[in-house]
């Protein structure tokens, strides 16, 4: 211990404290601060870059998922549209069919009515012609019959008898 104290030099202690203090200050200010900052910044930069890459990756995944979702939606929409179109088509067709049927029915009815009226007209015509023919025939027959009196009387009697029967 005594030897240590003997060796201790106040001057050297003074210079060491002063110079080291100065060195510490200068290094602190001009070396360690910028060095530590640069290293820190670089580490921060690397971290940020990694984070950014991660985020980009996640975003990419999101985008893929989104596009897939969109695709799915589009497909579904297309299906829906097709289905609707089919339904529409079916609807139109069936409606058209129905309409056609109704129209046809109407036409048939009309035709039937026309036919009926034509038939009636024809029948009436025929009746009239038949009546005319009958009258002419009757006239001829009567003219023949009425050539003699007896025959005339008989005719009248027959006719009268017929009427009673009717």
């Amino acid at each position: 211990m005594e030897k240590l104290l003997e060796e201790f030099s106040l001057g050297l202690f003074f210079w060491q404290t002063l110079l080291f203090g100065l060195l510490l200050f200068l290094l602190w200010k001009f070396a360690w601060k910028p060095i530590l900052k640069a290293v820190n910044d670089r580490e921060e930069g690397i971290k940020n870059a990694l984070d950014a890459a991660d985020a980009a990756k996640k975003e990419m995944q999101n985008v893929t998922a989104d596009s897939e979702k969109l695709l799915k939606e589009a497909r579904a929409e297309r299906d829906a549209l097709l289905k609707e179109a089919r339904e529409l088509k079916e609807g139109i067709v069936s409606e058209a069919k129905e309409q056609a049927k109704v129209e046809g029915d109407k036409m048939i009815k009309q035709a039937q009515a026309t036919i009926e009226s034509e038939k009636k007209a024809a029948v009436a015509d025929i009746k009239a012609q038949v009546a005319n023919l009958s009258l002419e025939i009757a006239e001829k027959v009567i003219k023949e019959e009425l050539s003699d009196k007896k025959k005339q009387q008989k005719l009248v009697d027959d006719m009268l008898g017929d009427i009673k029967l009717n």
Partner: protein
Amino acid sequence: MRKTFFTRLILVGTLLLAQFTFAKEQEHKTEEHGKDLKTEIKEYISHHLKDSHDFSLFSYTKENGEHKYVGFPLPVILIDDGLKVFSSSKFHHGETVAEVDGNYYKLYHSKIYKTDAEGTITYDEEHHPTNVKPLDFSITKNVVMIIVTGLLMLWLFTSLARSYAKNGGIPTGAGRFFEPIILYIRDDIARPNIGEAKYKKYMPYLLSIFFFIWFLNIFGLTPLGINVTGNIAITFALALMTFLFTNFTGTKDYWGHQFNPLGNTMPWYAKIPLYIILVPIEILGLFIKPFSLLIRLYANMQAGHIVLMSLIGLMFIFKSWIGSPLSFGLAFAISLIEVLVALLQAYIFTMLSALYFGFASEDHHAEGHEEDPELVHL
């Protein structure tokens, strides 16, 4: 791979040179004085371990017996009836008395004493000089090395900082070597010991102290023969800074732990007998921690230098074909170990400083979680 080999070659070369330079010095000294070789070596080692007032690279003896020193003198600054500044060349390496403004000074065992014109030094019974020692604020060899190291660090790390700014945060050149060390100190020393919240405050100090000690330790292994970190005044100053940093940044919890180590685990009347012992121990611990720092660094560096130089000195004692190469090999191996020790001691000093800062800056006193500070003294 080639580069590493080249670096290794340089390292080995430097170490070899260190030993040869030293060896040469030894030889001449012995021849000159004709003293007992062992005493001579012992004196040389103890002289080397001390600070000196001039920067001598090596010395040799001319053919006519004149002792020649190669190096340069350093300014001597004394406070003795005012400021006295003069060149250390006036001492002629302790051989003559320096006369400044009517006062006479003599260098004796690397210390300056005030003497009379003849340079008489009086001794007490234990052979300690009794002459007056003026306050010595000289720019000694160690101070020069501190300045050199400081300038080197400033140049190295400010240029590193600039290169970061220039290259967008990517290290180049020497930065590739130093950045991992800086990051290691941050991620493996400061962060785990101090904690994520507060480590930033201490980082500049930890980095400075680590590189300062490391560089000076490495310089100590060069042929320049510097022993800065093995000087008690230096380690004392460093430990004092750690001590001041620790206690000035201490939180309420830290001081609470010092004066109330058991917390609220038992009633106050039970604490009294315990605290009579515990509190003084805790307070003593405050001083023991930095004291262990200063002694550890001092003793390790001092011991390393002594071992290395003793082994080299053995070469001249053996003077045989077996002994000398053997001690040379040993000295070489120890040199390599010293390179490791240089790094290790810087690491330990930084590590323990960080640990003490960690104690000082803890905020929430976690019972049972905290390590016992007494266990940490390695």
